[in-house]
């Protein structure tokens, strides 16, 4: 069996197994599994409103997934997507509330600010990794907490006077679209989905079609060989983190300029950045895979909200299913071994 089919088959089987085990758990705890999945489906696609909400949720997932996947393809593990997202969110809203500009300037400026903030937040661990060999996992995890508390403080002191949230952003900086709202009965679907898809194409193009992308991947495969071949490993590590952080910052802009239109004090992480790790993993760290995986996770998350209402099943169950899917993807070795066994039998 070719590697390519295997790469596609593994996540698909993982998803099916996740759903299967999820079914068993539901039945074992005395819930109605079919009603649960029907409610899940209806909650995601039963109504244009919900479908709009699914796409709204998919948007930051794609970007967070791309951020993780990009770093991963170049041999780095960016756990700091969450923090980069939070600073991106703050930066976007900051620009959104404090300037008075025409839309053609204001909106791109707010988006760029978010991208720059995310990039900066990722530059620090990238630089430390390149110069001092500090492991990026540790630094990015720490930077998540720094981001959380620094943004909370900025919201309280700069963006408001001791309040819990900022003002709403100006209309000229908003990604919201009355057209989509009319189409989907007031869902919060916004233009950001196009930005996310463009970024996915961009990531594919950079990695697969440019010399720089080849270099970045080469550093990921084997640092020493790349250095021997005359590539600048240090610069490539920093560059990779910065691009990854840019995607994460844009994910924050989607939340700040699209979904919410403001930023508020957070008592904990949004979870989008961490889900991005799962999205990237399920998507096999490829652009198209990330888009598909983000779509799956987005539908699961939004659909799950409907489960307690329609079927009386706690929506935590969907978290369990998502966790199971990730478990099976992570243990893809078992699936691969199984597939191999089956195909070997075929040869005999």
């Amino acid at each position, binding site marked *: 069996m070719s590697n390519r089919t295997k790469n596609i*088959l593994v996540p698909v089987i993982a998803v099916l197994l996740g759903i*299967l085990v999820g079914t068993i758990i539901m039945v074992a705890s005395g819930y*109605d*599994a079919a009603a649960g999945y029907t409610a899940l489906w209806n909650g995601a696609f039963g109504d244009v409103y919900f479908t709009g909400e699914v796409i709204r949720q998919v948007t930051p997932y794609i970007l967070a997934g791309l951020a993780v996947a990009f770093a991963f393809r170049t041999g780095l593990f960016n756990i700091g997507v969450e923090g980069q997202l939070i600073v991106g969110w703050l930066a976007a809203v900051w620009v959104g509330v404090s300037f008075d500009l025409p839309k053609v300037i204001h909106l791109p400026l707010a988006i760029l600010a978010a991208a720059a903030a995310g990039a900066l937040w990722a530059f620090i661990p990238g630089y430390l990794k390149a110069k001092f060999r500090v492991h990026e996992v540790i630094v990015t995890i720490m930077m998540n907490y720094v981001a959380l508390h620094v943004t909370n403080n900025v919201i309280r002191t700069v963006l408001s006077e001791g309040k*819990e949230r900022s003002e709403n952003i100006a209309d000229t900086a908003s990604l919201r679209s009355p057209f989509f709202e009319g189409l989907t009965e007031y869902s919060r679907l916004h233009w950001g989905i196009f930005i996310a898809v463009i970024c996915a194409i961009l990531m594919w193009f950079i990695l697969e079609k440019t010399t720089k992308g080849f270099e970045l991947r080469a550093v990921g495969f084997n640092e020493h060989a790349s250095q021997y071949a005359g590539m600048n490993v240090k610069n490539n590590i920093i560059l990779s983190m910065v691009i990854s952080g840019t995607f994460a910052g844009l994910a924050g802009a989607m939340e700040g300029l699209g979904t*919410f239109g403001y930023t508020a004090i957070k008592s904990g992480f949004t979870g989008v950045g961490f889900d991005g790790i799962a999205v990237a993993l399920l998507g096999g760290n490829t652009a198209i895979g990330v888009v598909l995986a983000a779509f799956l996770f987005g539908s699961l998350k939004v659909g799950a909200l409907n489960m*307690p*209402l329609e079927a009386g099943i706690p929506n935590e169950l969907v978290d369990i299913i998502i966790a199971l899917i990730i478990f099976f993807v992570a243990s893809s070795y078992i699936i691969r071994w199984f597939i191999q066994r*089956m195909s070997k039998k*075929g040869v005999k």
Partner: protein
Amino acid sequence: MKKRKFGLALSLVLAAGTILGACGNNDAKKDETTGDNGKNTEETFKVAMVTDVGGIDDKSFNQSAWKGIQEFGEENGLEKGQDGYNYLQSQSDADYTTNLNSLARQDFNLVFGIGFMMAEAVNEIAGQQKDAHFGIVDSVVEQPNVASVLFKEQEASFLAGVAAGLATESNKIGFIGGMKSEVIERFEAGFLAGVKAVNADANVDVQYAEAFDKAEIGQSIASRMYSSGTDVIFHAAGATGNGLFKEARDLKMKNPSKNYWAIGVDSDQEAEGVVTIDGKKHNVIITSALKRVDVAVKDLSTKAKEGNFPGGETTVYGLAEDGVGLAKINDEVAAKADIEAKVKEFEEKIKNGDITVPGTLKDLKNFSVK
């Protein structure tokens, strides 16, 4: 080989299909029966709530609101589910509007958003779903189809202050706040006023944990306070306060002869203070300052059912409305009789307006009991 591969995939899909299908049959039947029940209760008044990220079993706010909705449902013969009363949990801030909207679309007659964090979401959805009715607790949303609910937390914490002021022997009292906000300031001002009213010699040490969910910070603050001689600590800090209870229990266990009193908040937290020493049960909690979200939610639901939905208005629940109060006093407190008498006296005075309990630290400065 190709065929095998395809066969494997196919059989997997089939296997999954049969398993899912098998469940389907059972459940379709169940659905029909519940469907019938649903029809019987047509045209009933349906009420639902959306939790904030704390979840339905937070031992505080959301749980209390849900209790009120359950009571309302039982009294009116409703069943939990789509055709009676229900709740949706929010797992992140992004879920607030989706949840509110889902419930409004399911034709719930009244949908509550619990907690000030939901104010913006309620505002947005109320603007879109103009025919639906909403309630918001602990915040004010100015829309004609939203009823806002506020509490006079200061009155409950005033009574807690009275209890603390009379129970203390060292004249050192502690207050642990969650995050600085208007609501917690009402707790603080009321508590300080209550202590001042009965015990002018007592000192109150005020500390903020800057978090509602960090029990370890609560514990370390409590530890410092107790070790400096404080013998009564009141908290208005949600789950952070669980650290206070833990510290009080631990110290009591080590040194049963000394007093380490704590006062609970929101709901009656008596159960959190139980310590068993040498087979004998003790309780370190004097009482709790109650904030009856359940009473408010139930009251508002009843009003809405009767067609008197106070849309666009803000209802403030205080002692007089039974929206706040003090739980019963612990039997182990030496000054129990004294405390009960004083609490009763002040309750009357607050209810008939002889005393206005200060709700801000600014008002506290001008406060005095005649």
